[in-house]
């Protein structure tokens, strides 16, 4: 199972974290610090796996971002590597040629896209199309809500509260 997902920029800034195993706030900070140090210092031609504290971190760099997933030692490393790529492709499709800035300003969207790809540290959906459909539907729902809230009656309701 995937214990956590980390997105770290080349400067060591955290762009997304998602924890599927219970880590306390302290542990989370420690893990991020430790791993970003180890991963960012690895050269480009090394393998994508890092053994760490009895677990394995599978990571891949896309432009300025490192996508990392931590799995158990006997999990299939290449499979995890392709889960990362699968997630990246979905982001790419959604944002249209995704870049780090997209993920910074729309980090909340990255979170709900991730929720459509992984649950409980397991891959939920392998069809990019299917994920895209669900995300689109969610966006519509939110747009709809926004329209409602900006409608006249709502403004009046707010004002008179």
């Amino acid at each position, binding site marked *: 199972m995937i214990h956590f997902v980390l997105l770290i920029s080349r400067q060591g800034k955290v762009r997304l974290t998602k924890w599927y195993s219970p880590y306390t706030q302290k542990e989370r*900070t420690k893990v991020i610090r430790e791993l970003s140090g180890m991963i960012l210092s690895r*050269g480009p031609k090394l*393998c994508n796996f890092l053994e760490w504290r009895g677990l394995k971190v599978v990571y891949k760099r896309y432009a300025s971002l490192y996508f990392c997933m931590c799995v158990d030692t*006997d999990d299939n490393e290449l499979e995890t590597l*392709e889960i990362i790529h699968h997630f990246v492709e979905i982001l790419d499709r959604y944002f249209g040629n995704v870049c780090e800035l997209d993920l910074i300003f*729309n980090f909340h969207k990255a979170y709900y896209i991730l929720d459509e790809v992984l*649950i409980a540290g*397991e891959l939920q959906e392998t069809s990019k199309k299917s994920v895209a459909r*669900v995300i689109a539907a969610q966006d519509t729902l939110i747009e709809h809500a926004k329209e409602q809230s900006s409608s006249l009656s709502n403004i009046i309701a707010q004002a008179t509260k």
Partner: protein
Amino acid sequence: MALSGMRGLSVFISDVRNCQNKEQERVRVDKELANIRTRFKNERGLSVYEKKKYVWKMLYIYMLGYDVDFGHMETVQLISAPKYAEKQVGYIVTSCLLNENHDFLRLVINTVRNDIIGRNETFQCLALTMVGNVGGREFSESLAPDVQKLLISNSCRPLVRKKAALCLLRLYRKNPDVVNVDGWSERMVQLLDERDLGVLTAVMSLLVALVANTPHAYWNCVPKCVRTLERLTRGQDIPQEYTYYGIPSPWLQVKTMRVLQYFPKIDDPTIRKSLLDVLQRILLGTDVVKNVNKNNASHAVLFEALALVMHLDADKEMMSQCVVLLGKFISVREPNIRYLGLENMTRILLVADVADSIKKHQSQIITSLKDPDISIRRRSLDLLYGMCDVSNAKDIVEELLQYLTTADFGIREELALKAAILSEKFAPDLSWYVDVILQLIEKAGDFVSDDIWYRVVQFVTNNDDLQVHAAAKALDYLDKPAVHETMVKVSGYILGEYSHLLARRPGCSPRDIFHILNDKFPAVTTPTKALLLSACVKIMMHCQPPDPELVDQVVAVFRRYESSVDAEVQQRAVEFLALARKGTAFVDIMAEMPKFPERQSPLLKKAEDTDGDASEVSATKIRQQQMQQEQNSTALVVADPQPANGGLHPVSVPKTAAPARHSEQAVTSETPQDSKSFPPSQSQAHSNGGTPQQAPGHTPGSASADLLSDLVGPLSLEAPPPVASTSSSDLLALEAPPTPTAAAATPADSLALALLDSAPTQVQPLGNVSEWFKELTLKDSGVLYEDPYVQIGLKAEWRNAQGRIVLFVGNKHTGPLTNVKSSVLPPPHLRMQSAVVPENIPPRAQVQVPVDVACLSASRETAVLEFSFNVGHAPVSVQLKLPTSLNKFLQVAPVSANEFVARWRALGGPPSKLQEVVRGVRPMPLAEMANLFIRLHIGVANGLDPNVNNVVAATTFYSGTAATLCLVRVETDPSDRTQMRLTVASEDPNTTYELKEFIKEQVMDIPFPGQSPQAATVTPATIPLTGPAAALAGLI
């Protein structure tokens, strides 16, 4: 770039991004946090939009690594909001900010449940996702049935069902009881027919977890899994959107094969055949292509197929195909594939007999040991470790040593440990082993634990032909300019013992060697200094005829440390100084160390233990354990006296005839199994003062397995006590227990066999059994016995004449204890009934054995527990006294002064009232004695006796249905606390006598009367009683 849609949020993010440094960022974030905090405080004014915005900001701040310790309530509240937009924010942020143990999550269980059972599909999805990501045990208890319903529902859309499957997986991980094994397996079979591949993938993940825990319950899923796999690999009926770079869902393929690895065996011939066909196709049909992702995906499937082939115990041909493939992988450039090739080669080594074909790749693997990537180096090290045997040990270990000089910090410790283990396990000869370890200490001294050098010393001590070689080597290393402290220790020890064997070589005179050692003093720590002092005295002793100049120099060293701050160093210096004056007499004392008893390597034991601690259930691990059980010899089990490799077992227990005094001593001290064994004489107990738990009175096996005490202990023992006496008998006495092991193991071993043929094994308790018993006399729970395999704890409850003891027998070992037997032998005055112990105790398990006790009359005898078991094939048997001592049937009796005096008078004299002057009492203040009495359930009546130096006490003794009031009076002499007058009175003469004797035993230091020289000198009977006490004595 898509817009975030929330201006405030975007502005904040830009602000943070524009910060020049960390400090500015913190200021900006703090400002924002303060703002959010005030806004949340007067919540009434917050619009829905603002609430959402602030909660997102909180998540962003949290992600940046700042503590967000407020606003959790507001976040959680959003979950209960009626609208999707708010709910979504609430759910997502909650599951990011809080971990499963957070209290706030409990507050929303009901809301979440309503969303799950409600009709709104989007709400269902949100709720299932959150529970799947952070649901804890409480969620699993209240939500599991609802989630199961959604998963098997016909009316739900796949979108909901796949989330339900993974949500259930999470709940199952938190509490496996939520899935009812019997009913659910049928459901799983049906679910495997699922057409939607998204749902099927999720279901397969769930199945992996279920099968990993209870494979037998899901047998009926096997055919479906194989069929799914066939369908996938053939690419039949797979929608375009579920192919990944042209490969039909590689993830589903991998998961399906993973499920199949958890079933112990697949016997059905048709299913097995079709499965093997599929695997064969994968093995042969996977090619390297240009596209990275396609390559990764197809190799993910290939490696999983390899794992499944290994698991299935496929035929030889298929296995060798696997090895060929792996051999190809470990020589490719692509680092991922090379890494996985090495990793899987290590795995295949454990399950199949392919060692020979893997050895062909040895040079390739060694090349990988020098790869720039630490991940690959680790794998390569692991593989080399796994493939090492007698035939290639020399090459591999030397390779490891060579690499050690350049290896980076991250891997050095592991490397050193592995080299040490391999060299010990597969050494072709012992001198090679010694060379390797010395090299290891030289190159990576920091990582060579004490265990390792103790082991070298043991081998050298036990093998005469090794000693010259070792001494010469030690000298070489010590002569170098910068020497690691561990090297100083091991070399110092070896030179002290054996340097005289080199005396004829040039530059190896005692004087030269002393100078080398002497140079090391300033740079080493105190324990090493102590060791070097001992080495010096030995060198001086070996120098015959004595070289006056050397003696002067050595004595100068001792003088230097005569007033050392460290007690150990000081003691040695003082003692050696005294010995040095004795001339040749001290040759006897400083004789060569006796040989060590054979024992399991602590290093290998450690490795074995950590191996056995695998708590994770995984297919490969289970498989490894099975393999280890099947072929014990290849695993790290080295206690086996004749290992297949015939390597390192020349260490044997010497059977030399023991000098007479040894045997006498052994007879007196070795007879009883536990608490009866006391040191035979006080003086000896003192001389052993440094390591009291090792008093020679201990049972033969009981010398602690701790090597440290063997090596360091003896050094402190070989020295005389600080009060150097001139009589030669004293010296003999000192020499008698030259080392705890020598006293306990060398002469006593054979004796022990004769005396206690029930204890033939080498298993040794981890502490002092009689100490444990003594403690249990005073309290009702604690350890009764412990050795490396078993621990027996005890808890007791006593009420009047009845009692119940519960023995907690725990197997500490990683293998099962077999043939476990226990029987309780009650003395005549007790009636006891014990439950039966199960014949086998599984690893790490504990069983409880209740024993009922009823007391019929007073006696000091205690019950004995005979306990035996087998570890592997070696029987172990111990006899333990059970703490059913007299005091357990006593209860404090509150007695008023009048009552006491009346009773005391009524019980006139012997045999109802007995008086004795007890000598050799352990000196203790009165308060301590009163305390001891209370712990023995004898109630002290304060102030009853006008003399402050006396203690009077009363207690009730229960036996059968009778209760006997017993009165006790102790008169002490403040000027001599080693004696006292004890008077005990009760209606029953037997009870009086037994209680008196019992109290005597408890207050006396050593239960051999007249042993203490002090007591002997004061023998004249009457104690001059001081005024008031005498008055009271006259009165009553």
